[in-house]
């Protein structure tokens, strides 16, 4: 039953890494089991909940829907790479200050998706925020404080724009 393994080389949070994986292993499992980056969580493994969201080559990706071997040569960012040493990113800090998490299980996925959104050139309005982040599920917060946290971070980072409707 020993399945042949393939060596995957990629960059994770700025570090070159190598992992020997079976071809059918998902990228999420590769990160968690082979690279011991367990901050990426699995809520559904069928692409709906977004808990597993990471950034691959500059795009948000559901790591449960991608194979590890597809990450050959990729630049990957996970929740573990957001803080700069002891200093939380403005978004992480906003989640903390605005109570944007309760159990924290969905949080890495929201943080990665929102991090990506805040790095895009277009300004963040409430409509855009809700549109983008409605692809992830949270069962604890009722979303109100997630919206408030991301709004606060967007303002701090100079990315916020009042929506036309307001």
């Amino acid at each position, binding site marked *: 039953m020993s399945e042949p393994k393939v060596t995957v080389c990629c960059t994770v949070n700025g570090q070159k890494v190598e992992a020997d994986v079976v071809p059918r292993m998902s990228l999420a499992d590769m990160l968690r089991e082979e690279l011991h980056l*367990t901050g*990426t969580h699995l809520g559904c493994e069928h692409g709906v909940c977004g808990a597993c969201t990471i950034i691959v080559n500059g795009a948000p990706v559901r790591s449960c829907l991608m194979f590890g071997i597809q990450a050959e040569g990729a630049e990957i960012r996970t929740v573990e790479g957001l803080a700069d040493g002891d200093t939380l990113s403005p978004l992480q800090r906003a989640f903390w200050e605005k*109570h944007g998490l309760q159990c924290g299980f969905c949080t890495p996925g929201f943080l990665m998706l929102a991090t990506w959104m805040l790095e895009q050139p277009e300004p963040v309005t409430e409509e855009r925020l809700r549109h983008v982040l409605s692809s992830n599920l949270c069962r604890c917060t009722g979303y109100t404080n997630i919206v408030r946290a991301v709004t606060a971070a967007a303002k701090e980072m100079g990315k916020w724009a009042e929506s036309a409707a307001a």
Partner: protein
Amino acid sequence: MAGLPDEPMNWIGRNIPRLEDPALVRGEGRFVADIAVGSRAVVFVRSPVAAGVIRGIEKPDLPRGVLVITGGDVAALKPIVPRLGRFNYVAIEQPILPRDRVHYVGQPVVAVVAPTQREAEDIADAVFLDIEPEQAVVDLDSAAGPGAPVVHPMAPTNTIVEGRIRTPGLDAVLAESTIVEIDVRSRRQNASPMETRGGAASFDKASGRVSLHASVQMPHMLRTGIADCIGMPEADLRVVAPDVGGGFGQKMSLFPEYVLLVWLARKYRTEVAWIEDRRENLIASAHSRDQHHIVRGAFDGQGVMRGLDVEILANIGAFSCYPTTCGVEPLMALAEYAGPYKVAEYGTHARGITTNTAVMAPYRGVSRPVVSFALERLMEVAAKRLNIDPIEIRRRNLVTVFPHRTPTNMVLDEASYLETMEKAVEVADLPGFRARQQAAREQGRYLGIGFSVINERTGYGTPAFAARSMEITPGYERVEICMTPSGEVEARIGASPHGQGLRTTLAQIIAEEVGVDVQRIRIIHGDTDRTPYGWGTFASRSLVIAGGASKLAAGKLAQKLKRAAAVLLQGEESQVRLEAGMALIPGGASISLDTIARTVYHSAGPISEKIGYDLNEAATYDPEGTFSNACHVAVVEVDAETGNTRILRYIVVEDAGRLINPMIVDGQVQGGVAQGIGNALLEEIIYDADGNILTGSFADFIPPTMAEVPDIEVHHLATLTGATVLQAKGVGEGGSIAAPAAVINAICDALQPFGVQLFEMPATPQRVRAAIRAAQETSP
């Protein structure tokens, strides 16, 4: 209603950012799947049929290191058998793995153990269950009706629990009043915590003990339950709830999977882990709120409800959940139906009916989301019938004099049912809304507003559970507190939070008493080796009960510190103040608590006579309970063409008594509301007639997203109850209790021009469209 506290407080009432969060936002939490990395994997083969006889189990050739465990292998394990002492309760046995028959789709039948998850899944796919199907019964009303297939032979009518209550004057009141009758149906829900269930069990060869890390809400209870099934000493089992990714009641019960994990680890002296996938969670964890109520309100000409007569059916699934028993839904509905309303005469007949479906277990609010949906719909329908304004009819019926004894002998403590409603009417600007609604209707748009007034029984101790005649009566909590030699405070608690921020709120309570910074307080929870026996976190109880015990224990510790300070400062104990990590006496002398701690432990001589040799204290708290309350308002727009509902605004006016950390309280309310919105509009577990489940993914069972849930505004009133030592009331469930009624009342208000009245939740677009179509067909 009492006002806010006059004494300024240092820690209570502040929005302290949670102590839990820095690790979680860095992805450094430790959830059970993180702990399980590298363990041998357990995968369950689950029954594909709802009812049937097991003829055989065919196993593939097994590679080395792979185990396939069947019911025959675990015949020595005792089944799970929760018990109730009354209510015609029939004790049914849930096998760990069945030997003869299966009772629902998703029931674990075989456990496969392999070195990795992938290998275990491959083997599981190759196991063939030869099951001869029998006729299943799935639908609640059919199962309760005559001639239904029998799920368990000892319960020939499928009734597992049955409660009745009837006040002597009810019949007379029914005879002389206007009767408003509604038929209410709640469809089946799944709590769907974002982290599924899971456990990792490992055997320690040196001690012979097993440690089970599991995503659970009641670690101590789980330990007792597992040890009983296996017949092992509890002392040889340690249960740890690490970071838990939400529970909402689903993670309270003892499931066969956990018993099996411990058995495997012990028997094979190894490490095994089972991490449930989402499909398993949706089909086989626990379901809730599959209920049917027929409600008859007896109103006088003024709209005063003189009597209430209710018939309740609850689908309890194939087995009875442990430890609450399947009485949890029907008997809670029986006890608490009247909610915040005065009801002089009351009758209920409540039954829990077994079917070939997944096991029912508590889910945030248990029966009360259905009960308040029914009551609040009743108020609306009665108001219309009697031509009274719907807010006015509530004014005439809400309890305003406290304490109030209900017909089921519960005592409602000081609350603000009327005041929260009036405030909600004001915040929502009801007259302004009516004008906008009118203008919108003229443009063919349907806006609606819905109200829901609830009370929420919280923080109840053992008497409330004893009243249900449960063999096991949870309730009290114990807190053991200690100041270490370096001056930190450790509190070991029996409650087991999983997102509620209890580490922060309890630290605030303790900081207030002991005068140390919250950063120097460690709350230790969820580990049976390190915490006193307790009941975990559920039923909106932890802040009230574990918080109350924390306050009492911390008060004792503070007393001890003052006594020590008095010795060391040569002052009067009664004059010592503890503040900012110091003990101070009038006149300026002071000493740090750190120094006191060092002295107590390391230079015991002079003060040991006064305080002994340690800084340990403990307290247990077992309150009667208290009722928080709220009024919710939903403003919606319904698309009459598609039946789709959009929530435009959501307002909560909440009274939770004293708030320890208002930000955390608001978060609890908002999260509950979002789940209630899911219940109201989207979420439904659906079986076909044979008991196959049709909603096995998040594409079919649809929790709400940020696109469906609007900003949730929370306003507070604060009635400081004398019923709890903290003057605080629990809030864990109120959001989900009140929301379905508010949302569906709003839909009905929006569709007033069509005369649509909905009595089924969730009010999916299909149901709303069907109701509009039916109304159009019957209208002239």
